């Protein structure tokens, strides 16, 4: 690795530092000020539903979309891997098994059959 600095430029490093600052600003958005204030009741109720909504909005498009379009084929390894993964979760309540068995369905279909 003699060329590990090759192609490094200050502009890119500055942008990377800026992105790190964005991570801090978003993850700590409501931590900067410790002034006392109370969340309205409706917002407290709403937070009940935010975590599952956030994950679902990230996960579902990754399973049923391809290049920005809803997939129109059933020959897609992700569908079967996700179905097996979810079924395994509800059966055993274990995320590790979801990952391992889901990938055990995904890899042969995807790499082997090209689905």
């Amino acid at each position, binding site marked *: 690795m003699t060329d*590990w*600095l090759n*192609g490094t430029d200050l502009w*890119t*490093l500055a*942008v*990377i530092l*800026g*992105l*790190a*600052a*964005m*991570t*801090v600003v978003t*993850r*700590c*958005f*409501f*931590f*900067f000020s*410790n002034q006392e204030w109370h*969340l309205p009741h409706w*917002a407290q*109720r709403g*937070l*009940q*539903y*935010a*975590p*599952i*909504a*956030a*994950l*679902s*909005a*990230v*996960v*579902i*498009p*990754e*399973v049923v979309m391809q290049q*920005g379009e*809803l997939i129109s084929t059933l020959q897609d*390894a*992700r569908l079967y891997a*996700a179905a097996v993964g*979810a079924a395994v*979760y509800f059966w055993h*309540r*274990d*995320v*590790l098994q*979801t*990952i*391992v068995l*889901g990938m055990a369905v*995904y*890899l042969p279909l*995807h*790499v082997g059959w090209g689905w």
Partner: protein
Amino acid sequence: MFFLPSLYRHPEFAKGARELAPQALGIAAWGLVTGVAMVKSGMSVFECVVMTLLVFAGSSQLAAIPLIIAGAPAWVILATGFCVNLRFVVFSLHLRPYLIHLPLWRRLGHGYMTADVSYVLFIKRFAQPGTSPQDRLAQEAYLAGNDGLNWFSWVTCSLLGITLANGIPPAWGLGFAGILCLLGILCSLASTRMRVLSGLVAGAAGVTAYALPLKLNIVVAIAAAVILCLTVERVRGVK
């Protein structure tokens, strides 16, 4: 923040790490793929390592890489990073009452370290913020153990991905392990019918609004699901 003795000596620290461990494989695969993607994009190894160690946010890294390579204006790249991370703003609102008693640097340290998986596991374990100093310390220790292991598996596997970049063909699609990890956690949250409704609405909205720039579909989906569930609560008179 795993390096504070008062936290890592607490029994909840080990519990937090143990509860993260099953998902570590998915996080590791995702980190590996992100490491490979950074190198393949043409960034220098040094830039990839700095990005891994400092940015610590897979989705914003993956969104920013093509823009950096294309030489987009810096403010566009930073705005993209902010928007892709907007869900964390909601998370920080939720976590505020759990952490706000701490000194500023500790609040920021915990906030920086807490990504999707740790946030979800934390609020699943602690439905209410602690009221006594002991409860608060236990919650902080759990969070530190949980996000410490998350950070460790993400960073080591990203660095591994940077090293192995040319040996792992992207066509294998190993990143799907990260999606399966999130899917498992998603299923674990589906504990009430209203939450299932929230997940279904957000999934549909996330797909429908996918064309929006800057991953704003995620923010739209959270808003749509939360508003709909609150409306249903009101109509049906659920407390």
